[in-house]
């Protein structure tokens, strides 16, 4: 019975996988701007995203958060546009827009009815070169960013835990600093710091333009040439971020914050897809499958065994991203079930990890994860925005954008032995960092602790 079901699924998925994802075309302008276009003619819309290869991992200590503050300032006026006018123009064209800053990159996007793509290009190209960075505007906007930090981090116990966790798991590599920056760095930051940061990174040869929509690539290239083409390239000196040395022993960190519910985070340093090696490497795909075995839905091990059977976790998640400019982490996060404590939860989670090292995953689990990956590959094509986001992430990391379509195939090739091999190689105690949130009573207490961090849009 099971065999038959699995065979049917794999056959059906093979067919679904064949359903043509939109065509991806690419061209690099003379000034170095890389333009990637994916046709998707379902609706008369277009999403345009401009990605800069600069993120919080490029920032020096003492000025953390600069990439993100600059992202905010990109809306505050150019030689041609008044503060916030960019947003008004997009709004009046029926568009939606925002931006995002990550450890690895900074990006700006507009979603529009397809005939208005030029509006996006004209204004996005303008602020690539002509940003004003007025000190008074900066003085107001830095306050907004501090409010954002308070909202997302300072007053969120789980975010505080994550921030402190990252700061412990990474000793040397700048992933140890939060994307939004430390509050003390935001307090001393000046408009002139941002000016230098902008001049250093915001140039066409350090950017990638991704367009997904009901468009013809040739017309997009022509339009890109018209608006972005005249911007001159400037030399970019990349930062060589120090590599994180191999971890040689378990690390622990506790955060005490006003909270009601304890929580726990475990993280192991793991590799990511490396540019230029996509044909031979398999470890990131095996790690992705491993993550799905633990937490790929309600039938995966965490929900089935820890939440439903043992009732030791109220919830438990595993996450891993195979894409990054530097080696990342496989995270396991959990909240104890009512009446259970973090210690019990930690042992249960570690026992799960040990089992991955000790025995191969079952054929059934493997088939289920592969079915999910294949189906998700179709589901995600339902969103224009998400398709652009995936393409941009691959491109800015230096990976082949064809991976988007090859991903299912690569995951399909993963074996149970490979999953066990990556568990043995990376999910070891010596490579583990554990973070625990200790709740302080919420009532009758004053704040407290400074730390925080997360990814964000303007």
């Amino acid at each position, binding site marked *: 019975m099971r065999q038959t079901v699995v065979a*049917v*699924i794999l056959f*059906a*998925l093979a067919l679904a996988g064949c*359903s043509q994802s939109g065509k991806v075309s690419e061209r690099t302008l003379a000034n170095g701007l890389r333009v990637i276009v994916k046709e998707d003619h*379902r*609706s*008369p*819309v277009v999403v345009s995203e401009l990605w800069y290869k600069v993120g919080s991992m490029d920032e020096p200590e003492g000025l953390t958060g600069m990439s993100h503050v600059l992202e905010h300032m990109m*809306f505050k006026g150019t030689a041609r546009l008044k*503060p*916030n006018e960019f947003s008004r123009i997009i*709004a*009046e*064209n*029926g*568009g*939606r827009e925002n931006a995002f800053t990550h450890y690895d990159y900074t990006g700006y996007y507009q*979603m*529009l*009815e397809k005939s208005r793509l030029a509006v996006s290009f004209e204004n996005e190209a303008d602020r690539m070169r002509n940003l004003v960075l007025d000190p008074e505007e900066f003085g*107001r906007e830095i*306050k*907004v960013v501090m*409010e954002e930090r*308070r*909202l997302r981090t*300072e*007053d*969120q116990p789980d975010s505080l835990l994550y921030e402190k966790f990252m700061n412990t798991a990474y000793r040397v590599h700048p992933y140890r600093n939060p994307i939004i920056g430390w509050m003390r760095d935001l307090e001393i930051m000046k408009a002139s710091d941002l000016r230098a940061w902008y001049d250093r990174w915001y140039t066409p040869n350090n950017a990638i333009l991704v367009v997904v929509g009901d468009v013809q690539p040739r017309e997009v290239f022509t339009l890109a040439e018209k608006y972005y083409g005249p911007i001159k390239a400037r030399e970019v000196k990349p930062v060589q971020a120090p590599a994180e040395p191999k971890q040689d022993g378990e690390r622990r960190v506790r955060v005490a914050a006003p*909270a*009601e*519910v304890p929580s726990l985070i475990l993280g192991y340093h793991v590799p990511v897809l490396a540019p230029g090696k996509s044909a031979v490497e398999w470890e990131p795909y095996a790690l992705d499958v491993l993550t799905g075995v633990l937490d790929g*839905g*309600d*039938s995966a091990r965490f929900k*089935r065994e820890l*939440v*439903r059977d043992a*009732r030791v976790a*109220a919830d438990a998640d595993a996450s891993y991203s195979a894409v990054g400019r530097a080696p990342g982490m496989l995270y396991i996060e959990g*909240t104890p*079930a*009512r009446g259970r404590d973090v210690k019990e939860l930690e042992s249960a989670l570690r026992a799960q990890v040990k089992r991955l090292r000790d025995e191969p995953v079952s054929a059934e689990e493997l088939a*289920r994860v592969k*079915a*999910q990956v*294949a*189906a998700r590959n*179709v*589901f995600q*094509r*339902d969103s*224009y925005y998400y398709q652009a986001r995936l393409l941009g992430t691959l491109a800015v990391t230096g990976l082949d954008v064809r991976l988007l379509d090859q991903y299912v195939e690569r995951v399909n090739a993963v074996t149970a032995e490979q999953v066990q091999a990556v568990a043995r190689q990376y999910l070891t105690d010596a490579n583990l960092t554990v973070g625990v949130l200790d*709740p302080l009573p*919420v009532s009758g*207490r*004053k*704040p407290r602790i400074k730390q925080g961090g997360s990814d964000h849009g*303007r």
Partner: protein
Amino acid sequence: MVARVLLAAVLAAWAALAQAGPKIQHWTLDNGARVYFVETHELPLVQVRAIFDAGSARDSGNQYGVAALTSMMLNEGAGKLNADAIAAGFENVGAEFGAAADRDWATVDLRSLSDRKLLDAALDIYATLLTRPTFPAQNLERERAGVMVSLQRDEQSPGAINEKTFMRELYGEHPYARHPLGDMASVKHITRDELASFHKRHYVGANTWFVIVGDLTGREARRIAQATVGQLSKGEVLGALPAPKPLEAAKVRAIPFPATQSHIRLGAVGMARGDPDYFPLYVGNYILGGGGLVSRLSEAVRERNGYAYSVYSYFWPMQAPGPFLVGLQTKNESRTPALKLVRSVVERFVAEGPTAEELEAAKKHLTGGFALKLDSNRKIADYLAVIAFYGLPLTYLDEFIGRIEAVTGEQIRDAFRRRVHPDKMLTVVVGGGR
């Protein structure tokens, strides 16, 4: 000049014509369930959503949380299947299942590849748990404990505390006052039998709307509707929800919380779906605080003063009139001036209405972005669900642009003056001491 105006009119008419909504096929099953289907073949996927008038507003007596737990327990056991078999049954074919209950409705979602073998396998389980959930007592204990952890977690979030307090204080005895999950005391006593009888009464044809979007023919969609929600018993239509009483005077609630920011919400009872003032209020609110970073509130609070990262206003139209509210978070030290500023922006907007430029910009945004509202199966399904459940005309999306274009500044001013009374608002502040 004349030529330009004429051209603009022609273009607008063309745009309205070109931007009709999707073609909706609609029929009613023998048991009363109403089906809404949009056929799309670009992607090999199918999305279905069953909607029941079975949200927390239908919790009776003091059984707060029954609707939510009923929804959560659907995939804990059904027919001969236990929770493991249900989860594996969906996920082995790559399908995604979800069930949720809000105040107005309970929704049960399935997304699957459209390959018939995969789809049928997923729909088979879907139908079983809609029609024959078993609500195993053991699993209820676990889900109950899970709800308690969620409720406890809300207590560490100033935003969640604010939201709950706001709805409680604004709605008083009305069912919308209660949080869908219930509270610690009510959740403790819910029994398995209460869930089973809630399901029996509410998950019935007369109380069901069913949305299908995706890679199917009309004939297949009919078969699927019949094989899933078509199997529900007929049941009875529920009575209308009571009307909430608007506040008669301003009311302020301040709740101390150890945080660096204060979370502020102010508002009042707003409007229901299908309200005759819907379009003037909708366009007006876009200008006041709905238009992201270009609204009056955002301009004043964020762009000019740096008081907040996020400030917004919205109407939440529901079966019975839902709230109108304004929200922001600011560091404790800025609380007083920020609140004063927000009040003055709202008061002025209610008194004066929008400027001609603001109205024009709002219309351009709301009509020019129409295509973006419907550019995925998921968004189409979301709109269908609202049209279906709230009984909006099938032509709602086709007429949307015209309705927006027809709104005048005077209509907005008039509607806001009649519907929003700044001197009778509830204000809730959750945050640190000064």
